[in-house]
């Protein structure tokens, strides 16, 4: 280290004597220019043979991929829009269909209700008629029973009073009275 330092100082002193500025020490120019040319040639060969074609290819590949992807995305977007339109149409169709079904069902139910109502009405009417008939029968039965009781009672009253009368006479008399 010491010798090196000494050498360097010595060299620096020489340089300072020669030019004072290392850049203007022309004794080193040949060395620098030689190594510079070697360096530049090496860099040029490496870059132009290996690096630049590779980077260019990667960039071109990426540009192609991106263009393709954009085209694909455009296509997918188109498809999505079509699908959306189809969906909207299906939805609208379904709505119309649903409305139609609702209307139909309503009409059917209405019809059934009407039919049931009509049927119930006729049944009720029949029942009412039956009831009326039964009432009439009962009433008729009651009148008849009352006539029989009246005849029996009349016959018993006549007998109790010590009289005798033909049955037919009693009957007609009572009937006439009752019809009165």
């Amino acid at each position: 280290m010491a010798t090196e330092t000494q050498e360097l100082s010595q060299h620096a002193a020489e340089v300072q004597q020669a030019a004072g500025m290392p850049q203007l020490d022309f004794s080193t120019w040949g060395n620098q220019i030689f190594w510079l040319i070697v360096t530049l040639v090496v860099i040029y060969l490496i870059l132009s043979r290996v690096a630049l074609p590779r980077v260019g290819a990667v960039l071109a590949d990426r540009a192609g991929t991106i263009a393709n992807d954009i085209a694909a995305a455009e296509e997918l977007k188109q498809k999505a829009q079509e699908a959306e339109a189809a969906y909207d149409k299906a939805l609208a169709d379904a709505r119309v269909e649903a409305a139609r079904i609702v209307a139909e069902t309503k009409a059917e139910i209405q019809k059934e209700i009407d039919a049931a109502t009509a049927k119930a009405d006729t049944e009720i009417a029949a029942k009412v008629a039956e009831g009326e008939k039964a009432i009439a029968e009962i009433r008729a039965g009651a009148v008849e029973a009352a006539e029989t009781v009246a005849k029996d009672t009349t016959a018993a009253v006549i007998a109790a009073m010590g009289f005798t009368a033909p049955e037919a006479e009693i009957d007609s008399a009572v009937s006439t009275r009752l019809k009165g």
Partner: protein
Amino acid sequence: MATEAHGADAAHEGSGLVFHPMDQFIVKPLFGGTDVHWYTITNVTLWMAIAVLAIVALMVLGTSGRNRVPSRVQSIAEMAYGFVYKMIEDVTGKDAIRFFPYVFTLFMFVVFSNTLGLIPMSFTTTSHFAVTIVLALAVFLTVTVLGFALNGAKFLGLFWVTSAPLAIRPLLAVIELISYFVRPVSHSIRLAGNMMAGHAVMKVFAGFAAIAAVSPLSVIAIVGMYGLEFLVAFIQAYVFTILTCVYLKDALHPSH
């Protein structure tokens, strides 16, 4: 290392502040000896080799996956590719894409040399006029040869400004001619000057750190300068590349 040595000397001598801002630029052989022959392996060789390795790591190893979805390193490589590609396309024109590897080589070398030079104790190859003058002359000769090869004598129309009045055209031609030949000078000195000045200023600030009273200030100043230099490293690489594109445009389309 040289600075260390001088610092030690200064400490021994006790002579206060000693600045050696230029010692970091000394070209010295790596494996002993003091003579620098053209074939000697020096610190220039070392840092250029590191730049090559860094470029290989970024552009070759980083992209070895060829991923459609890039990794972090690969996206940096793609960013650099797209940056230079777009620069050529915008500034020079679509027909200049065949010079893309050439321009990209210059850009990668300059940007990696500049940023590697910011590593402490490193050596900045682009701070040397020898390096930048070769780079600029390569561009200058390419443009000149290409201009004459593609356009023939019409390339001289670059110096004959037809939009100006006839009387002042000879004067303009002289000015244009001078500015044309000054191009490699400004192209190279700009890069080397910026790199050298920034590094020298940092070294000067570092020298102030020896005084205890101002050393915190010095450290803060170095941090600030370091950030600025990092920006400058990229901007100078960008400027170098974009000027290359502008000059190439003159060769391809000499009409104003």
